[in-house]
C-alpha cells in the first residue's frame, strides 16, 4: 500500500504555497517575509563588495573556467591556459554569453558574480520548498529560517563573489534534490529527464560530481525495483539510458576541449585534475596501512564538516541516516512514500560525494604532505553542506533526545580533533602551507605566513565549539518558550561569518588584482599602437597573474615561456619586435630595463616595449 504523499497536518500550507506561486512570487514573499529578509541580506553582502571586485581571486582555476568560453567566442588563450591544469567546461556554458556580451573584463566578471547572486537567491525558494515537502509537519516559518541559514553558509557567500564553480554547484545540488523530490511525488517523465540533465551537467561543471550520478542512478533503480510496476521500470530504464549516453558524450566533449584549449599544456600539469586515476587511488586502500591512512584522512574531512557548520551538519547527517534506514524498512514493507525515497537520494548523494573527496584526496594525512587544506579539505564537500545545515536545524528543533545527541556530537568532534591533532603534530613540515579557499569554513583565524598550525587549529575549533553552544542555547530557548523567531539568531551568526569571510579573503586582494587588470588595459593600448609586435611573457612561478592580463586584453595573443622549473635565457626572447611581460621583481628585470626603451610597472608585472 502506498502512503498518501501529503500529510494532513500541513496540506493546507502546501496548497497555499502552490496557489501563491501561481499568482507570482511576490505573494510567496508576502507570506514568507523571512525569505525576503534573507534575500535582502544576501543581496546586501554581495553589493557590499562588488564595486571593489575586478578579477580573479583564485589562480589558475577561475581562468580555466573562462577559457572554454573564450575559445567558443573565437579567442585563443591556449598559451596562457597552459599554465594551469584541466578545468571542466560546464561552467563555461554560463560564462559564454557573459563573455560575448560584455567586452570590459571588470564588467564581465561582475556580471558573473551577479549571476551567482541570483542563483543564491533562487536557492532560498528551492530549499524552502524542499523542506516543506520533507518536513510537512513543521512550521513554514521555521523551515524558511532553516533554509536561510543554509543558503547563507559562509563558504557559499565567499564563492558567490568569485567565478569558482562552487557557487553554481551549490545551486545545482539543491536543484537536483528539488527535482528528485518532485519526480518521486509525481513521476512525470519530464521531471526525471530534467533531474538526469542536472546530474550530468553537474559532472560537466566539475568531474568530482561523479558521486551525484551514481547516487541518482542508484536511487532511481531502488525506486523502480521497489515499485515493481512495468511503467515505472520502463521510465527508469529510459533515464538510466540517458545517463549513460550523456556520460559518454562528456568524454567526447572533454577530448575536444583538451585538444582545442590545452594543446600547449604538459601531460604532467594536465594530470593534476585528472579524475581518471580513481581505480589506482582505490587500490591504495586495500591494506593495513591504507586503512590507517583512510581513517586519518577521514578525520580531517569529517572534522571540517563538523567545524565549518558548528555541528549542524552532524545533525543533518544523523537525520539522513535515520530517515534512510526507516525508508529501507518501508521499502521492505512495500509502503514507502515519496519523501522516503527523497531521503535515500539525499543520503546516497552526501555519502557518495564525501567518498569522492576522500578517494581523490587520499594521502592528505601523509607526514610529507605540507598542505593543511588538503587534509582539512572543504571545497569538495562544501556544496552539500547547506542542505545538511537546513535539515540539521529542523532535526535539532524536533529531536526527542536533544541533549543526548548533542553530547554525542561533541564527543565525536573531540575524537576527530584528537586524531587530526596527531596528524598535524606528526607532519614533517607542520602543515604550514594552507590555502584558505579550499577550507573556507575553517579559515577564520588563518593568517599568512602560518607559523603554528596547531595554534590556528585550536582557535578554529574553539570558535566552532562556541558557536555550537550558542546554537544549542538558541534552540533550547525556542523549545522552552516556543518563540519561533528566536531561531533567526542563527542567521545572525551566518551573516557575521559570511561578511568576515568575504571581507578578509576576497576584497583585500582585489586592490592588487586591479593593478594587473590595468596592465591588461595598458597592454591593449600598446598592442593597438604596435600591431606588428609579438607579445611574450616569461612565467617564473607563483600565482599566474598573466591570466588577469589576458582576461583584461582578451584579443591579445600572448605566448608564454615557462621558466618555473628551469630558467631561460631572456636574451633569446628580447627583441624590438616583441612586447615583453615579466614579473615585477623577477630575475629578468635588469636585463629588460637595459634593453627596452619603455616600461610600465603595474600590479604584479612589468611590460616592456620599444615604440
Amino acid at each position: 500500500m502506498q502512503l498518501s504523499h501529503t500529510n494532513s497536518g500541513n496540506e493546507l500550507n502546501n496548497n497555499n504555497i502552490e496557489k501563491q506561486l501561481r499568482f507570482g512570487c511576490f505573494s510567496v514573499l508576502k507570506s514568507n517575509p523571512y525569505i525576503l529578509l534573507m534575500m535582502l541580506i544576501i543581496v546586501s553582502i554581495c553589493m557590499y563588495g562588488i564595486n571593489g571586485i575586478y578579477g580573479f581571486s583564485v589562480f589558475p582555476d577561475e581562468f580555466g573556467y573562462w577559457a572554454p568560453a573564450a575559445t567558443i567566442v573565437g579567442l585563443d588563450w591556449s598559451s596562457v591556459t597552459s599554465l594551469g591544469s584541466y578545468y571542466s567546461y560546464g561552467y563555461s556554458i554560463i560564462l559564454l554569453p557573459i563573455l560575448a556580451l560584455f567586452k570590459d573584463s571588470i564588467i564581465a566578471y561582475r556580471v558573473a558574480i551577479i549571476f551567482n547572486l541570483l542563483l543564491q537567491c533562487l536557492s532560498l525558494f528551492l530549499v524552502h520548498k524542499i523542506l516543506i515537502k520533507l518536513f510537512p509537519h513543521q512550521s513554514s516559518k521555521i523551515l524558511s529560517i532553516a533554509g536561510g541559514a543554509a543558503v547563507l553558509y559562509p563558504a557559499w557567500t565567499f564563492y558567490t563573489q568569485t567565478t569558482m564553480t562552487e557557487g553554481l554547484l551549490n545551486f545545482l545540488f539543491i536543484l537536483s534534490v528539488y527535482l528528485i523530490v518532485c519526480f518521486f511525488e509525481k513521476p512525470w517523465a519530464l521531471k526525471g529527464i530534467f533531474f538526469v540533465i542536472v546530474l550530468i551537467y553537474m559532472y560537466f561543471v566539475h568531474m568530482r560530481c561523479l558521486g551525484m550520478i551514481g547516487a541518482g542512478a542508484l536511487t532511481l533503480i531502488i525506486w523502480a525495483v521497489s515499485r515493481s510496476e512495468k511503467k515505472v521500470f520502463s521510465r527508469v530504464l529510459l533515464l538510466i539510458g540517458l545517463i549513460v549516453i550523456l556520460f559518454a558524450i562528456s568524454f567526447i566533449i572533454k577530448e575536444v576541449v583538451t585538444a582545442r584549449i590545452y594543446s600547449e599544456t604538459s601531460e604532467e600539469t594536465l594530470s593534476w585534475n585528472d579524475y581518471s586515476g580513481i581505480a589506482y587511488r582505490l587500490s591504495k586502500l586495500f591494506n593495513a596501512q591504507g586503512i590507517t591512512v583512510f581513517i586519518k584522512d577521514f578525520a580531517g574531512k569529517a572534522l571540517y564538516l563538523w567545524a565549518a557548520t558548528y555541528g549542524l551538519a552532524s545533525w543533518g547527517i544523523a537525520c539522513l541516516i535515520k530517515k534512510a534506514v526507516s525508508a529501507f524498512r518501508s521499502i521492505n514493507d512495500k509502503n514507502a512514500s515519496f519523501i522516503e525515497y527523497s531521503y535515500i537520494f539525499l543520503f546516497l548523494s552526501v555519502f557518495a560525494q564525501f567518498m569522492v573527496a576522500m578517494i581523490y584526496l587520499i594521502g592528505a594525512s601523509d607526514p610529507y604532505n605540507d598542505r593543511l587544506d588538503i587534509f582539512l579539505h572543504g571545497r569538495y564537500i562544501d556544496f552539500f553542506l547547506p542542505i545538511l545545515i537546513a535539515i540539521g536545524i529542523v532535526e535539532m528543533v524536533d529531536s526527542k533526545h536533544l541533549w543526548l545527541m548533542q553530547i554525542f556530537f561533541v564527543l565525536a568532534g573531540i575524537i576527530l580533533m584528537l586524531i587530526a591533532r596527531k596528524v598535524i603534530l606528526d607532519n614533517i613540515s607542520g602543515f604550514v602551507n594552507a590555502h584558505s579557499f579550499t577550507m573556507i569554513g575553517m579559515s577564520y583565524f588563518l593568517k599568512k605566513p602560518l607559523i603554528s598550525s596547531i595554534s590556528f587549529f585550536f582557535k578554529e575549533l574553539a570558535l566552532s565549539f562556541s558557536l555550537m553552544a550558542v546554537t544549542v542555547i538558541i534552540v533550547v530557548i525556542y523549545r522552552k518558550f516556543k518563540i519561533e523567531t528566536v531561531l533567526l539568531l542563527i542567521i545572525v551568526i551566518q551573516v557575521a561569518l559570511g561578511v568576515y569571510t568575504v571581507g578578509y579573503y576576497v576584497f583585500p586582494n582585489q586592490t592588487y588584482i586591479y593593478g594587473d587588470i590595468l596592465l591588461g588595459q595598458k597592454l591593449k593600448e600598446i598592442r593597438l599602437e604596435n600591431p606588428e609586435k609579438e607579445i611574450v611573457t616569461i612565467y617564473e612561478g607563483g600565482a599566474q597573474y598573466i591570466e588577469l592580463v589576458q582576461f583584461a586584453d582578451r584579443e591579445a595573443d600572448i605566448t608564454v615561456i615557462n621558466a618555473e622549473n628551469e630558467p631561460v635565457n631572456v636574451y633569446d626572447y628580447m627583441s624590438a619586435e616583441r612586447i615583453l611581460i615579466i614579473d615585477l621583481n623577477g630575475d629578468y628585470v635588469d636585463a629588460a630595463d637595459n634593453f627596452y626603451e619603455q616600461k610600465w610597472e603595474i600590479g604584479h608585472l612589468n611590460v616592456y616595449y620599444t615604440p
Partner: protein
Amino acid sequence: MNNKFSEISIIFLIVTILCASFFSFHVSLAKDVNSSQESISGSVMTIIQDTVARSAPDEGASVVVKLSKGDSIFVVGENDGWYEIFYKGKSAYVKVTGTSTGNANDEEISIAAAADSNVNSALEEEFKKKQQFDVTYVDSFERQQRRNRSALVWKIVIAVLVVSIIVISVVIGIRNRNSIVNEDEDNNSESDKR
C-alpha cells in the same frame, strides 16, 4: 495584524535596499562624472633621507612601509607636521623632520619636492618614468575611495538588516508568545464557564 506587519516589513526593507542602491550608485557615479573636472590633489615627492611611513600621524603608530632615499611617493595632504601619502593602495603618514619652519632647503627635511629647481636631469628622467607609475596610483586611489564609500553604505544596510533580525526575533517573538499565552488562558476560562 500579522499580515499588516508583514506588509510594513516588506515595504520598509525594500525601501532600505532601494535607498542603499541609490546612494551606492550615486557615490560611484558622482566620482565618474566629475573625474574629468576634478582630480586628486597632490604632488609627487622624493625621499632624500631614509624614513618610515606609519598608519596614523603618531610616532607610536605601526610602520606601514620603510622608505629609502630615492623612493617616490604621492603626497595628498599635510597636517600637523605629517605628510599624508598614498602608497601601494594604502594611506600612510610620514613625519616632516627638520626645522620648525619646514624650510624646503634644510638638509634635515626628509622629503623634497620634485619640482625643486636643484633636481638634476637624471632625476627628471627618473620622474618621467615615475609619471607612468603615478597615473596608476591616482587611478587606484580614486577607485579605492569609491569602493570604500560604496562599501560603507552597504555595511550600514547589513547592520540595519541584522538589527531588524534581532528585534524581530526577540521583541516580536515575546509579543507573539504572550498573545498565545493569553489566548490559552481565554480558552481555559471559557471551557471552565461551560
